[in-house]
């Protein structure tokens, strides 16, 4: 028997099949081939782990658990209560949204040179302030001239 055939036979084993029931040829091959022997052992371990966790007897309170869940889902659908995992899902969605907004602001800040307000706008704001101060000074000077001009 070659390794190809041996592998197919090993992977053919199922949880209820007894190891070694595939025949003399495979057993003989496993004695001489370490790679196939390793696979047979690993596959046997997977099946035996699963077999150990399998339930062979019905859980006597399983129906009560289903009934409880059934009643809690009815309450969810009538809008009275959401199960905890729904709150967790909503919470993580909101956290994700907040993270996206913060990331967006941060990237926006980087793209605009650390200031979300464009440079020109700032200059305009400053010059507007300066402009109003100049206008104010000019008006005061005119008033002074009006009241204190000797020629008037």
């Amino acid at each position, binding site marked *: 028997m070659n390794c190809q055939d041996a592998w197919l036979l090993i992977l053919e084993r199922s*949880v209820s099949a007894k190891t070694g029931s595939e025949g003399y040829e495979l057993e003989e091959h496993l004695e001489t081939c370490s790679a196939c022997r390793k696979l047979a052992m*690993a596959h046997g*371990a997977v*099946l035996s782990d699963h077999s150990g966790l399998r339930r062979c007897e019905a859980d006597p309170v399983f129906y009560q658990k289903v009934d409880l869940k059934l009643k809690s889902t009815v309450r969810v659908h009538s809008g009275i209560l959401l199960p905890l995992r729904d709150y967790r899902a909503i919470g993580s969605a909101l956290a994700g949204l907040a993270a996206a907004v913060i990331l967006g602001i941060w990237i926006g800040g980087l793209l605009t040179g650390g200031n979300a307000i464009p440079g020109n706008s700032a200059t305009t704001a400053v010059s507007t302030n300066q402009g109003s101060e100049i206008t104010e000074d000019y008006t005061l000077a005119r008033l002074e001239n009006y009241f204190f001009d000797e020629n008037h």
Partner: protein
Amino acid sequence: MTDSECIQGLISGDEEAARWLVANHQLRVYNICLGFLRNMHDAEDIAQDVFVEVIRNAASFRGDAKVSTWLHRIAVNRSLNHIRSSKRRRLWLELNPFTGNSADDTTCLPAGAAGGNDLLEQEDLKHALERAIDSLPQNQRIAFTLSKLEDLSYQEIAGVMNLSLPAVESLIHRAKMNLQKRLKKFFA
């Protein structure tokens, strides 16, 4: 009680019908979920969800298959959905700098990391085989798991997957060939 009597009972809200359904099918449904999830608590939780879904949606059962086939199909779908959502959750936890902790991830151990310790090496090889089964294309994985871990007949698998018998045979054969390819590096 027959399948149709059970469904009629469920539609009319008869508790006895629900009890009968759970009593007759809970073992198979739980074990199918376990085959995919490999975790008793998750399998128990998902198996309960399967019955909740069937009891609530009994009116939508068309009756063109057995109730057991319908239950098994829901069990497979729910288990795979659970695996998908857990993967997403795990990925999120790993990416999240506040809760992420990749240091305890033991599933990424390379084969042979045990350094000669036979028991650990065998454990590694077992994980490699499980990972290889998990990485099979979905249809091959379902057919292989139901056949080898749950011992469903090819006919039953065909019913659950809504496929023909030759299609199931072909899927299982391809699954074995794929496993062989994926495992070569571990068992060479």
